[in-house]
């Protein structure tokens, strides 16, 4: 029982870390119809900024997170203007080509400036201690990541379901031309959602760095995982992303506990099974 609980809590923490990073990608893919393979590259940029802020500038963890999010969004704005705008509505494979190109460039440039070594983001003392939660000892930052995940999910749900902006966003997604005709400034909606997606990638990159360490190949190493998780959940769906992250996190974590030698088999077999049963993902919208 104790073991089951431990595995469950590990799985939950891992799933939440995945969720924070992937939900931004889910938004871009579901709402803006852009297969943004460079999503991980933005998370990585954020990780580097946070690491630089915390280690070299000596700022605190919270300040580093804030700086990383702002910095990444600022970096993404010219990219959106100059590059992403050209691929909205274009065939998926063209988007793949462009975003892989962006990923390569980001990796190359990061390597040039920061070198090929691992970067860590030092945690504040309160988050780096092991915490005894009764049945096991767990690192405090894992609890922090879980909390972040819940807050992000709740916040996004509120934003999309309960606010004025959410209504405009949903209208734009359903039918951009119609929303435009109704006076919604769809360009602004797109720009804001892109910024939100990048901001979430940045947040995920920083708080998830304890699970997925920051290094120059981060963007490529986890590209597949992110894409798979989003597709399984159904692009654009928050509950879908939550379900996919938790389920795949659980499969992955449990598989690694029970039969680590077949760890990846479990993960990808689960993906195949889910996709065959739910070809549009758990909560994917009909095409």
């Amino acid at each position: 029982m104790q073991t089951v609980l431990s595995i469950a809590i590990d799985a939950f923490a891992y799933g939440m870390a995945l969720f924070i990073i992937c939900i931004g990608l889910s938004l871009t893919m579901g709402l803006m119809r852009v297969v943004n393979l460079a999503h991980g590259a933005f998370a990585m940029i954020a990780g580097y900024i946070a690491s630089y802020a915390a280690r070299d500038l000596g700022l605190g963890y919270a300040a580093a997170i804030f700086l990383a999010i702002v910095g990444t969004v600022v970096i993404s704005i010219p990219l959106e203007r100059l590059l992403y705008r050209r691929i909205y509505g274009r065939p998926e494979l063209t988007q793949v080509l462009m975003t892989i190109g962006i990923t390569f460039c980001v990796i190359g440039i990061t390597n040039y400036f920061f070198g090929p070594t691992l970067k860590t983001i030092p945690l504040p003392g309160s988050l780096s201690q092991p915490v005894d939660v009764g049945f096991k000892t767990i690192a405090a930052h894992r609890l922090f990541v879980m909390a972040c995940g819940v807050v992000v999910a709740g916040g996004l749900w509120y934003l999309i379901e309960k606010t004025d902006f959410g209504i405009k966003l949903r209208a734009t997604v359903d039918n951009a031309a119609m929303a435009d005709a109704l006076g919604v400034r769809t360009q602004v909606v797109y720009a804001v959602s892109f910024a939100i997606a990048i901001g979430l990638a940045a947040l995920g990159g920083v708080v998830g760095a304890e699970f997925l360490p920051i290094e120059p190949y981060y963007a490529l190493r986890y590209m597949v995982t992110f894409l798979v998780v989003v597709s399984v959940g159904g692009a654009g769906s928050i509950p879908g992303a939550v379900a996919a992250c938790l389920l795949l996190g659980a499969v992955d974590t449990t598989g690694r506990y029970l039969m680590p030698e077949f760890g990846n088999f479990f993960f990808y077999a689960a993906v195949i099974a889910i996709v065959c049963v739910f070809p549009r993902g758990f909560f994917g919208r009909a095409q």
Partner: protein
Amino acid sequence: MKVSKAILGAAIGALLTGSAMADTIKVGIIGPFSGPFALQGKNFQAGVEAYMALNGKSVKGHDIEVIYRDLPAANPAQSRALAQELVVKEKVQYLGGVYFTPDAMAITPLLKQANTPLVIFNAATSAIMTQSPLVVRTSFTTAQTTSPSGKIATERGVKKVISAVSDYGPGVDAEAAFKKAFEAAGGQVVEAIRMPLNTTDFSPIMQRVRDSGAEAVFAFLPSGPTTLGFVKAYNETGLKQAGIKFFAPGDLTQESDLPALGDGAVGLLTTFHYAVSHDSPENKKFVEAATKAVGGADQLSFPSVGAYDGMHVIYKMIEATDGKQDAQKAVDAVKGLSWTSPRGPVSIDAETRHITENIYLREVVKGPDGKTYNKEIQTFPNQKDPGLATQ
């Protein structure tokens, strides 16, 4: 930038002069200069440059010119293509470098026809040496660096160990070598876990370690994010506090990863052939020169010493053949060669052409400057590769 100049120089040299400059001997180095393992390639380059800085750029009047070729990840087809190009087009007389085993395997069938020896700076699987008599290796094998940990563990009163290795060639080698050595010393491996190579969240593994009831964990993982994740999980899940010991080959605590591992690594016991902190005049000179070449003190790690000694072997080969291309003679000349390397006394085993060297037990400790380093605390002299010795 130096690399590009070297290549440009080589290309122009080849174009302009051809055979007229017979007194320039070319050495082709293949390594991962870009990609996820770029740091290891940088260390190759640093080792080579350090050797040439300290020992001159010519042997017996023959100028030495090094040509680098980039092979970012294990890719035998590309490896063969690069080796072929170096031999046929650039007319190198010596091949060196090679980080990954399959890449070395792809080059060995070419050597005889190319009349070129291959000096391996890293690729650490025993079997490579049996593929061609023209291969010499100046690095280590995983079995070689791992075996002493068996004895160390029993000496420290550990009877039951759980082994956790990444599920790939070197991991499997390490698992087997440790099991053999540990059981020979009277211990018991209660469980052997093989972990997916691309995992970075190891808390479920730690749960297994805890559940197994072992007194220590033996681990082998590739450097970088995986090692970081593993060591982190070891600390965070409270295994360290619970007194469960940690043994591993030194790949896990290589110097370039230590800053990222931070204080979490303090106390880890690893066995390896080289620590940057090794205390000897040879090493001081080497570290100084290599640090200059690599660009930053915290980027220097073990592949540089493999490359440094590899260049030493190549220099000796050139000396023996006096610039004539004769691979067999060159290899024969270094069989049994012994010298003092930055890592300590070493020799080339005449039988296996693999390096015989000291293996050190090191503990990660915090230095006076607050940085962690590998401190050598015990020496196992003149270790051969057990993987080859049995064959």
